[in-house]
């Protein structure tokens, strides 16, 4: 446990990928195979089911220290993470004692002998065990234990980095390691030793080993200025810009993996798509997007996130939140690389490969036939009602390049909807933004009073956040736990993707993806928008299949979920 806690801390302290690989390589080189197997289990993003809910765990800690609710709330606002809050509160109490005999159990022993057996026990027994363990561990180890118990341990390394580290220790290639880690596996010393066994020479094994990793993604740059600068529109392949999860599907023989843009393996979250894509014949690498619902008219990104957040979705969830795959590009087919062929050839090849399998849940991103940039402009304006967030423009003669190279792929997103609203309240954020007022509440006028219309968490620079944090502290009017209401004097332009009616919101409207576009220092509070503006906006956008309907799904989710979804939606890697 101690070794793992130290490893976690070291990985947490660096952002350099080479440094992360070095730390992991050193760790695996030093540890026994059993510990290595368990660490690998967690580093590669697997985790056992939640053993104890975080609310329950927090309550047990609270009972132990005897603090009132409000004090736990205030403390949570400063820490922004339940597992860490508990660890800190236990260590900082007036009667806290330093752990006496440190637990020397390894991570594997902790999991097998202690944590996993809790699942079958009743609450009273679980509680007494956990209270005992808390006394054995130091603050950082307690934090890790809490993360393990609540099933919320996340280590900041991508799977491919983990493979590189293990590969270095075993003197094997990353792809061999990756292929041996496919699917479900139980961490054990035997497993780790088998993982490091020399690569087999058999023809079959070799082929599968070499081909299951994704290739570097080609990324789109935003259009700046007029599209006319790109030249003749006939040189460009136009598609909708879909709002989903960009991914690569890699198939070799009977095996297949789906990789997100952040090079995380997401195969397990989409067994329905895996089955479907397995039916496409041959070995290949296809670039595409997972979208919500029917690919002819995709649903919102929120609907997708219900799926993405599950490592193993239930059949019920798959049925209630169906997804489709929209193919963009073909990178490899039957042992041959297509990346250096022009897009027009790749597209033709993609269609030939996929056409026989196309169906309700599997499609090829449709080409938009346009004869002028003016026509493109008009079409782009209709993106919202198509379930898209703009247009994609790809040079027909371009190769599939690595990264965001200018001049190859462009994204031409629609401008967000926007209103001017007044900052009326704030509360501290979580994680990286703990103890800093970064969760803002914005209001618009309804008669003579301001009513809440949206909460926004993003859009400001670090410097702007710091300035606003200081201002909020000095201009607080009232405090309700961690929430502070502030003087109504600052106006911000709030951008959003959709609007719908909602009974849950005071203003009667729910905004989708609200974020801060800029501060309107040129506007006085009186100049902020009125609730009537939203009414007008909604009326102008309303179509039965328009954004209003999709936005409703968001309005129905809980506030906590909303926030999680928002964070994920703008997280790295998953969502182009």
């Amino acid at each position, binding site marked *: 446990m101690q070794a793992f806690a130290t490893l976690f801390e070291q990985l947490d302290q660096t952002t350099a990928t080479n440094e992360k690989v070095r730390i992991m390589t050193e760790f695996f080189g030093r540890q026994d195979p059993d510990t290595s197997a368990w660490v690998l289990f967690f580093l590669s993003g697997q985790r056992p089911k939640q053993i104890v809910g975080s609310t329950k765990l927090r309550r047990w800690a609270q009972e132990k*220290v005897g603090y009132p609710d409000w*004090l736990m709330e205030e403390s949570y606002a400063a*820490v922004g993470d339940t597992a860490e*809050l508990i660890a*800190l509160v236990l260590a900082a109490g007036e009667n*806290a004692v330093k752990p006496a005999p440190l637990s020397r159990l390894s991570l594997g022993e902790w999991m097998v002998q202690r944590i996993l057996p809790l699942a079958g026990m009743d609450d009273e027994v679980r509680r007494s065990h956990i209270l005992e363990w808390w006394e054995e561990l130091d603050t950082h180890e307690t934090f890790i234990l809490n993360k393990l118990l609540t099933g919320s341990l996340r280590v900041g390394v991508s799977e491919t980095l983990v493979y590189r580290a293990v590969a270095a220790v075993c003197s094997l290639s990353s792809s061999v390691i990756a292929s041996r880690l496919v699917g479900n596996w139980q961490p054990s010393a035997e497993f780790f030793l088998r993982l490091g066994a020399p690569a087999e020479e058999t023809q079959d094994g070799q082929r599968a080993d070499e081909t299951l990793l994704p290739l570097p993604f080609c990324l789109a740059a935003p259009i700046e200025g007029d599209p006319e600068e790109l030249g003749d529109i006939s040189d460009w392949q136009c598609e909708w810009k879909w709002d989903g999860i960009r991914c690569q599907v890699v198939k070799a023989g009977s095996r297949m993996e789906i990789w997100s843009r952040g090079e995380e393996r997401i195969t397990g979250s989409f067994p329905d798509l895996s089955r479907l894509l397995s039916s496409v014949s041959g070995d290949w690498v296809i670039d595409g997007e997972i979208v919500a619902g029917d690919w002819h008219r995709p649903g919102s990104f929120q609907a997708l996130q219900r799926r993405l957040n599950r490592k193993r979705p239930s059949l019920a969830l798959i049925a209630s939140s169906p997804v489709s795959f929209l193919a963009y590009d073909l990178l490899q087919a039957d042992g041959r690389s297509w990346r250096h062929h022009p897009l027009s050839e790749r597209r033709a090849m993609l269609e030939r490969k996929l056409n026989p399998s196309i169906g309700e849940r599997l499609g090829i991103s449709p080409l938009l036939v346009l004869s002028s940039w003016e026509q493109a402009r008009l079409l782009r304006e209709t993106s919202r009602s198509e379930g898209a967030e703009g247009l994609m423009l790809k040079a027909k003669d371009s190769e599939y390049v690595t990264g965001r190279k200018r001049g190859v792929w462009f994204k031409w997103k629609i401008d967000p909807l926007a209103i001017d609203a007044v900052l009326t309240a704030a509360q501290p954020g979580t994680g990286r*933004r703990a103890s800093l007022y970064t969760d803002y509440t914005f209001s618009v006028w309804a008669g003579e009073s301001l009513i809440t219309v949206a909460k926004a968490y993003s859009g400001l620079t670090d410097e702007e956040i710091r300035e606003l944090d200081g201002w909020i502290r000095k201009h607080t009017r009232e405090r309700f736990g961690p929430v502070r209401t502030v003087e109504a004097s600052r106006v911000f332009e709030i951008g959003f993707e959709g609007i719908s009616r909602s009974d849950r919101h005071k203003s009667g409207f729910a905004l989708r993806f609200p974020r801060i576009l800029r501060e309107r220092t040129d506007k006085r509070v009186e100049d902020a928008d009125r609730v009537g503006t939203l009414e007008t906006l909604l009326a102008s956008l309303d179509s039965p299949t328009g954004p209003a309907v999709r936005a409703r799904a968001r309005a129905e989710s809980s506030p906590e979920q909303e926030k999680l979804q928002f964070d994920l939606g703008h997280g790295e890697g998953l969502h182009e």
Partner: protein
Amino acid sequence: MSDLIRLQPEGLVGPGNRFHIDAWGQAAVNLITHAHGDHARTGSAEYWCAEPCAPILRHRLGPDVRIRPVPYRKPVRLDDCWISFHPAGHILGSAQIRVEQGSRVWIVTGDYKRNADPTCELFEPVPCDTMITEATFGLPIYRWASTRSVTERIVEWWQRCREEGVTALLFCYALGKAQRILAELTHFTEDEVLLHGAVASLTQIYREQGVSMVPTRLVSDAEGPTEGRLILAPPSAHRSPWMKRFRSVSTAFASGWMAVRGIRRRRGYHRGFVLSDHADWKGLLDTVEESRATRLLVTHGSSDTLARYLRDVKGMKAEALTTHFGEGED
């Protein structure tokens, strides 16, 4: 009976407006708890402070300012009040200010910590009826580890930087924290540490007062490459053009705020060392108890939280006081 010390727009003020304490506006007589910028401001006719604070205050406020140094614990008469300065353990020369009038005794703690610090006298509890206490870390999540164990981690990190051939750039407050680290390092090494200019001048003042620290030198006077060397610099230098002179660096920040992972990650330093010159939660509660004060006024940081805790949980008379003493410092 009116309060002995009241809050005015220009700061805390004593009976008959005869003196202020750490005034942020102008004062005739300004009693200073310590020389940090948010407590010692320019504009007053005369400054009183604890003896070891005077040279630092002079350095901060300029040569023409009138300063009256008062030895620790020595009562001085000011009209019908007795004033005395008592060690607060925050930085060199830091003091709690005791004000006695008739049967009443008030304490203004200024900033303080309860951990030992080789650069200044240890905090001394002073009995009083009313205490105005700071609460920078007034949440039950802060508990400081021993300074020795933190210094050990700093030394390990420095050693690691040496092995990897990178410059170890440690950011910390230029007054107090930097010298405390330099003094703690004497337990581990005699190696020279390089200093940013802002740290160097204050370190010199500490040396002149006999504080024992590892050898130091200005970064600009360093001979040879800085790789493998430890450099102390103020937080304002982080990501400033000053940093461009170093080829490869590992950055770290020594502060009580580094206790929270989210803040550590947000600030963007490679490493965070939890080292504070303020009292932790237990330190605050112990101090309140040892003072035997029956009424508490709480300033700084989590003042509302600590005041409410003392009221609701400890059943004491306590309220928050809104001052201009810095939030976010340390």
